[in-house]
């Protein structure tokens, strides 16, 4: 789905000018830079340095930008649960209030709770309120009633890639499971409920799967090693805790495909908590849920994760929220967790680059608990 706001159209026009700039020689650049700088100035703070002539000497460099995220809303029909609807509306309000607007909004999967058409329709209706364009990702709760039929009819492809301001983005469907339902003769709803059970081990494992890994390899072929890559996956692309499916079984194979790139960031949903990890060249960041926070898994928690303490059980929004991803000129990201009942936490790229030595983020703890 592509809803382009006025801001977005304006940004695109500005990008066009920037693209033209990097193809100019220095003398020609000086002629047009005045016009470009004027546009930058009208847009406001923070991006003026993008107009330094150095861009001419380094074509393909990243122009810093930000995108927002909303994830894991788990909508039910209103008569069954209205809290989660209210929470998603809150996230949409948050993102729409960002000034300037983010370049786009990533929706991180699990829009619906049980893949019901009414749940997905409700979610699509609410997400239409977003001013910035939306990049959709699928989660297992969206998928296993009809194996994505309704979801795809609303939002299009579940696996795709795009380029934005010097970054190559890849959106995966990491919740593919081997067929465990046919042999047992499960109905679609039984299949859906089996997958929706966090610790229901009668299902298979989440995986990206061989066909998608092949697609990924091909998709990345023309992308140079120096190009920063950002991957969106619903489940974490590493082995965290199998007992709760905080897990993508073929994650090591996917990591190998990504190994040649200088900077790779994986942004994932599913875990509903502050979660930070680094494996070699890959930085991993979890997303907050708008619906509920999960406790931390009993084992496998990455050392870099600064945990939040126990959420207040009386406050259905504590430990929940939305957030932003700030992409810098090197293509590294600062991950912002906008917690609704706690302090905002930013996990800076320096923290991961230094393996936890620099810029340790403050804990998002509620003092009274």
């Amino acid at each position, binding site marked *: 789905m592509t809803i382009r706001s006025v801001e977005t159209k304006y940004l695109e026009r500005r990008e066009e000018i920037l693209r033209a700039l990097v193809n100019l020689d220095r003398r020609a650049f000086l002629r047009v830079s005045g016009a470009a700088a004027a546009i930058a100035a009208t847009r406001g703070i923070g991006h003026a340095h993008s107009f330094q002539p150095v861009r001419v000497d380094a074509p393909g460099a990243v122009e810093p930008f930000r995108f927002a995220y909303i994830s894991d809303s788990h909508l039910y029909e209103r008569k069954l649960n209205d809290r989660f609807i209210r929470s998603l*509306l809150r996230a949409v309000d948050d993102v729409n209030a960002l000034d300037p607007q983010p370049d786009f909004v990533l929706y991180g999967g699990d829009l619906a709770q049980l893949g019901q058409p009414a749940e997905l329709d409700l979610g699509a209706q609410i997400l239409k309120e977003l001013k910035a364009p939306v990049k959709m990702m699928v989660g297992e709760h969206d998928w296993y009633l009809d194996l994505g039929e309704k979801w795809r009819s609303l939002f299009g492809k579940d696996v795709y890639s795009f380029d934005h301001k010097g970054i190559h983005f890849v959106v995966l469907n990491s919740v593919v499971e081997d067929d465990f339902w046919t042999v047992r003769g499960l109905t679609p709803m039984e299949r859906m409920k089996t997958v929706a059970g966090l610790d229901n081990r009668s299902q298979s494992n989440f995986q990206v799967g061989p066909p998608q890994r092949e697609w990924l390899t091909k998709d990345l072929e023309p992308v140079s090693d120096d190009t920063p890559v950002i991957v969106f996956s619903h489940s974490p692309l590493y082995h965290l805790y199998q007992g709760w499916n905080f897990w993508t079984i073929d994650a090591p194979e996917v990591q190998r495909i990504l190994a040649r790139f200088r900077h790779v960031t994986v942004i994932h949903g599913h875990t509903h908590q502050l979660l930070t990890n680094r494996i070699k060249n890959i930085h991993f960041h979890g997303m907050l849920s708008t619906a509920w926070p999960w406790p931390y898994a009993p084992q496998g928690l990455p050392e870099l994760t600064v945990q939040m303490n126990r959420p207040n059980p009386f406050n259905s929004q*504590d430990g929940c929220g939305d957030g932003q991803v700030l992409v810098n000129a090197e293509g590294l990201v600062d991950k912002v967790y906008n917690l609704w009942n706690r*302090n*905002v936490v930013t996990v800076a790229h320096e923290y991961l680059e230094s393996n936890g030595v620099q810029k340790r983020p403050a804990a998002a703890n509620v003092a009274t608990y």
Partner: protein
Amino acid sequence: MKPRRVRILCAGLVLAGPSVARAFAQDAVTTSVHGAASMKDQLAALARLGLPQDGLQAPPGIDPIAWTASIVPDEEPTPARVALGRKLYFEPRLSTDGTVACATCHDVTRGFTDNRMVAEGVGGQLGRRNAPTTLNAALFTDQFWDGRARTVEHQAGMPILNSIEMGDQTEADVVGRIGALPEYQQAFQAAFGRAPSYEDLRVAIGSFERTLIFLDAPFDRWQAGDASAISEAAQRGHVLFDGKARCTNCHPLNPASPLGTDNAYHNIGVAAHDKDFEGLARQALAALEKDASEKALDELALGTDLSELGRFMITRNRADIGAFKTEQLRNLGITAPYMHDGSLQTLWDVIDHYNKGGEDNAFLDGGIEALALTDAEVDDLVAFLFTLTDVRFADANQRAFDAQKAQAAKSRPFKDDALSQRRVLGFERRVLGE
């Protein structure tokens, strides 16, 4: 202004409405400027309360170790400091025009507040916020509705310099004026062993406030084993308080948390329907970019529309937009009207507000939701809340209960059965415009 001899209900309650005023009608007291009882009558009422001479010993109901630990070194509430603080608390000469004392808005005869919607300061100026009671204020983690001061000592110095409240320009002005009076030179000397200063003035007023601990309520006696201390209705209300009505989440009320507050900040949707929070927040960020000093925050909180942003002004965290401190529940029978803006006149209004899930807005606290309380349950909760007033204010508490009950019988402006029974949801009305 010459004091007039009138019954208290006639004066100074334009904004609060007659019912609230009647609640505190008692033996005739002299009403003075800004609607407060005269300082003479207030001092007489204070004498009847039997306050301790100092704040060094933990009051009943407070852990002695915690009490001692809460006293800042060099700011001990000694008898001489408490005496000086008492004198200053009732001193209108602290204000620029000599009409406003602490006791003007924190009136001994009115539950140590003013029973008005918002406080009135020099020149009859109205602020934006309801004056909270000074009773037990020393036990809060933070002071003011937005927590912009930590201790009562620090808090005490701020209204004096606020242009709407007591109107003084500088600390030096205040010290110059008060310090010129021989009675104060002596009192400061006795309390601190030195000439008057603004810091010592703050500590003295704070020391006096540390003697205003009122935690002996019928509820406490019931909890201690006196089965007849509170009515059956109130006992049913207590069960609701801890359960269906979800009060205890933000108002934990037990021996470890005697005030009934979590000392945190929540947007509970008070009168939020007519606020453009997004627009106000943008204005606030621009204003705070220029000046985020304590003085600036104090003026913005009392004198501008930004007041409604509450805690956000202090933290600039979007999650704190429209969030205000959880007020204590102690003595709330005699401290109407309620909420940061004094917009709710009776405790029936308060429960009606919570029962419908507050006034929906984008920043509404996640713990707030429609409660589906029945009319009888609302009555039981109110009965319970009236058991939290200290026995020394029993008469005023009974008068307030009768007056609020009569008022509630006439008008329940915040009652909304469609919302409270979840036939309509707050956000649906907001988003769909229904």
